[in-house]
């Protein structure tokens, strides 16, 4: 029910979102060739696998909170919670919607990367839990953020900063060694780098070390954000 609701309310932005996802995912992979001239194989591998993560989490972490902000601004927010369904189903419906929206972009980005660069990929079964956990955590962190913050403008501002952080200041599309030391150290405890590591570990061999730790950090973020969401949503009225 709530999945249908989310899909219906998204139909205006749905097509655009999927197109933006595909274009930005593929665009990133191609733009890299312009940065470098000659792309080193390691850089190509990092961007191609990193872009998957970016397409997976931008909907949950950026678009999702912005939609909630819009609902708050339009005053339809309270109406949603008055619907006669358990609030957990609303959250899970949103996760499902993200999965449906995120996976096509991810597949196209990977396809373009494979065509454009000669990649050394080793697909393993670990990709499935990695993608699911990454998507779930990304969505739930965005969900917690959107519902915990009252001011719609603040939500929009934060999510716009997040795009920059995701694309530019986190070791998703490039190795952590290329960041300044303090920032790399910080990312060991934030969810973004573990997301990239778990997904990358499912696609490559010998590039990622200590995946178990990444799963733990990511799991902790998932639990924490579910906790925050539950506390905030339970509180209302």
């Amino acid at each position: 029910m709530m999945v249908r609701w989310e899909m219906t309310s998204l139909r205006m932005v749905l097509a655009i979102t999927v197109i933006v996802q595909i274009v930005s995912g593929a665009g990133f992979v191609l733009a890299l060739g312009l940065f470098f001239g000659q792309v080193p194989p390691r850089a190509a591998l990092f961007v191609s696998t990193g872009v998957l993560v970016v397409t997976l989490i931008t909907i949950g972490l950026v678009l999702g909170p912005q939609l909630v902000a819009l609902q708050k601004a339009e005053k339809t927010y309270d109406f949603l919670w008055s619907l006669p369904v358990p609030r957990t189903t609303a959250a899970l419906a949103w996760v499902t919607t993200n999965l449906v929206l995120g996976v096509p972009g991810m597949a196209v980005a990977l396809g373009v990367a494979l065509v454009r660069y000669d990649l050394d990929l080793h697909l393993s079964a670990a990709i499935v839990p990695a993608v699911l956990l990454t998507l779930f955590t990304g969505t739930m962190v965005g969900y917690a953020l959107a519902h915990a913050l009252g001011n719609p403008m603040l939500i929009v501002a934060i999510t716009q900063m997040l795009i920059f952080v995701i694309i530019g200041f986190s070791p998703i599309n490039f190795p952590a060694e290329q960041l300044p030391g303090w920032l790399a150290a910080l990312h060991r405890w934030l969810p973004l780098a573990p997301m990239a590591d778990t997904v990358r570990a499912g696609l490559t061999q010998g590039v990622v070390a200590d995946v178990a730790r990444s799963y733990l950090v990511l799991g902790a973020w998932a639990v924490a954000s579910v906790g925050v969401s539950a506390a905030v949503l339970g509180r209302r009225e």
Partner: protein
Amino acid sequence: MTAPSLPAPPLRRGIAYWLTGYRGMLRFDLASAREWLVPFVIVQILMGAGMALIYGFYLGDMPIQVATFVATGAPTLAVIPLGMALAPSLIAGRKVEGTYDFMWSLPVPRLTAALSSYTLFTVLAAPGFAAALGIAAWRYDLDLHVSAWVVPAVLLSSLMAASVGFAVGHAVAQPALVNVITNLVIFVVLMFSPIAFPIENFPGWLAAAHRVLPFWHMANVVRASLTTGLVEAVWQSYVVLGAWTAGAWFLAAWAVGRRR
């Protein structure tokens, strides 16, 4: 004691009236700028200095020539979003809020409203330009040769960007479409424009397109004023930018004059 007389109704033409209108519009624009000045500055710093740092993270260890290229592209990246994205979305915002028609009902010549916007956006671009350049140069430890040409380069670049943004904002009736266009511009500028990296890296058709589009030329005039020997035939870039500015003014004049 003479009775106080009513002031004579002001003449609605002439240079003095025009200048008063211009001053009034500038005050009006400055006052409304309070709302967006902070996000404005943040956007400049993010897009300029932030992108210079981000390109560095992607590239890893850079030789000094590459770093110089990236750093001298930073100020251009800071200027583009102001005029080309923020200006049209401010106008689109007014259309959504319904204050757009009010603006045109103000008793000033429409030309002064346009000139006031150009002035404001051109002047406001300068601090972000300097900050982006300063941060990028500091991060990559560069030794730049800043020449007096930096003044016309910045002024023309930001005037061009503001003019194009103003024209797009007024000529495109639908606010939603304006948003799509500005997002597209940002996307193209950040990912597919030879601003922070050489145009030689681009495939032929894209390089050819960028010889007509203004982005590469903005980067050229700015880079030429900051370095020696990196840019050739910079006058061509000045000509192209001048043509874009003039074209944008024609479009804006048509769009503004057309209304009712």
